[in-house]
């Protein structure tokens, strides 16, 4: 088991050395990058916005219901929603969801190209297939994931406010004042740093499992599952490490 982990880590590092080289043709890299931003980012906006709004609403409602002490002001609902969403929910939970959505897409796309010899075709032409296929996905994820996470923060806080308005558990004034209490820009910076790490993990780990696929359709499915599971585990581990490093 340990040997397998070490072997996989070695293979991953070797692949990354091939990935992080100068693209052979700038124009083609640019086209690929735009396609990946569309495929990995723009197409994820809907699911990110939907989940964020509802999770923000749930956090706000649960906080409001749990405030049964009259000495605790209702502004705490806004404050708690803001802190939960920015510190943890948007960067970590949304990254885990993206690991599922985007990670499986990357692994299955590259894995299918492997088993149908499309990667061999690239190699025969003299193209660095690892760089051509994975590098634009990594750059696209690093560019678009922070945008998605900021959108998620907005939607989460908005969802919380809509829930308060709809349920009358807290007034708009209380909620908005809560959001503004003791706001530090650093927590957004912390969330963005985490997001960048997670984006790198999702795109490279999924790219690795896709690229290393051998066999047929069954193996593509297995690679896709492994990519999501391993990315999620590494995200959870790095979440702890980064939180320790950045918030203490």
């Amino acid at each position, binding site marked *: 088991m340990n040997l397998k982990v070490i072997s996989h880590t070695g293979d991953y590092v070797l692949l990354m050395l091939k990935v992080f080289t100068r693209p*052979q*043709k700038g*124009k*083609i890299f640019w086209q690929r990058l735009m*396609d990946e931003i569309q495929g990995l980012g723009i197409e994820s906006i809907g699911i990110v916005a939907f989940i964020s709004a509802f999770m923000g609403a749930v956090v706000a409602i649960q906080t409001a219901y749990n405030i049964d002490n009259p000495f605790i002001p209702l502004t705490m609902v806004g404050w708690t929603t803001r802190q939960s969403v920015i510190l943890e929910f948007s960067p970590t939970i949304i990254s885990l969801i993206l690991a599922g959505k985007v990670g499986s897409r990357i692994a299955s796309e590259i894995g*299918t*190209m492997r088993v*149908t*010899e*499309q990667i*061999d*075709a690239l*190699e*025969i*032409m*003299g*193209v660095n297939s690892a760089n051509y296929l994975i590098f634009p996905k990594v750059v696209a994820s690093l560019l678009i994931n922070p945008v998605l996470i900021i959108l998620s923060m907005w939607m989460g806080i908005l969802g919380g406010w809509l829930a308060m308005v709809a349920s009358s558990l807290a007034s708009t004034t209380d909620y908005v004042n809560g959001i503004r209490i003791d706001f530090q820009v650093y927590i957004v910076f912390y969330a963005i740093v985490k997001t960048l790490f997670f984006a790198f993990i999702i795109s490279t780990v999924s790219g690795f499992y896709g690229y290393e696929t051998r066999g047929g359709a069954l193996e593509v499915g297995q690679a896709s599952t492994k990519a999501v599971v391993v990315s999620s585990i590494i995200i959870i581990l790095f979440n702890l490490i980064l939180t320790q490093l950045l918030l203490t």
Partner: protein
Amino acid sequence: MIEAKDVNKYFGDHHVLKNITCSFEKGKTNLIIGQSGSGKTVLMKCLVGLYEVDKGTIFYNDRNFSQMNFEQRKSLRQEIGMLFQGGALFDYMSVEENVMFPLSMFTRQTNDEKKARVNFVLERVNLENVNHLMPSELSGGMRKRVAIARAISMQPKYLFCDEPNSGLDPQTAGVIDKLIKEITVEYDITTIVNTHDMNSVLSIGDTVAFIFNGELWWRGNKDTILHTSNKELNEFVFGTELTSRLKQ
């Protein structure tokens, strides 16, 4: 001309290619035949560098391919075209984009020049008005022809075809064989075809190499293959009901 000298390949303990020494001539269709699992695909992948040989050398017109570095191989590969078993067309590109890809990647041609070249090679393989179709919209024979068009778009000096007739009906297979033969003569290139289709052997086999259990078992051509006394080759050639009846 391509020469393999004393080529050996292992997968773990399995000795797949055993001391293969063979030359493939320019302007001729050189066929490698053998049963499934005999090592012919491995030999072809060694010749193009998709697998590294464990022992032995490969020469492209006296250029030692085995000793070339990455850049030298990249440069040589622009002289190589390859037709894969399933075509290996890029799923996310149209026919035109597939054929244009090597030109976009490795030449400084203008868009008009590239389009003219694409139309020329598509016409050469008897395909017209398919530029904007996606690979999934093509029949098996059309996919093969587009793959041939992509393989010859850079005017290669060496053409490799891995099982060009697999999955095709006899008539379409004949069309593909004829096309490969015509292109070989017309462009005076070195063509190597991997096949176990006896129709191909008898119609285009200028030279034939029979691989048996990883060894070069017999060498000849389409005229001598039916009159050999080699037991294993006879079993291969007359292994089907049709060919054994014809022999009788």
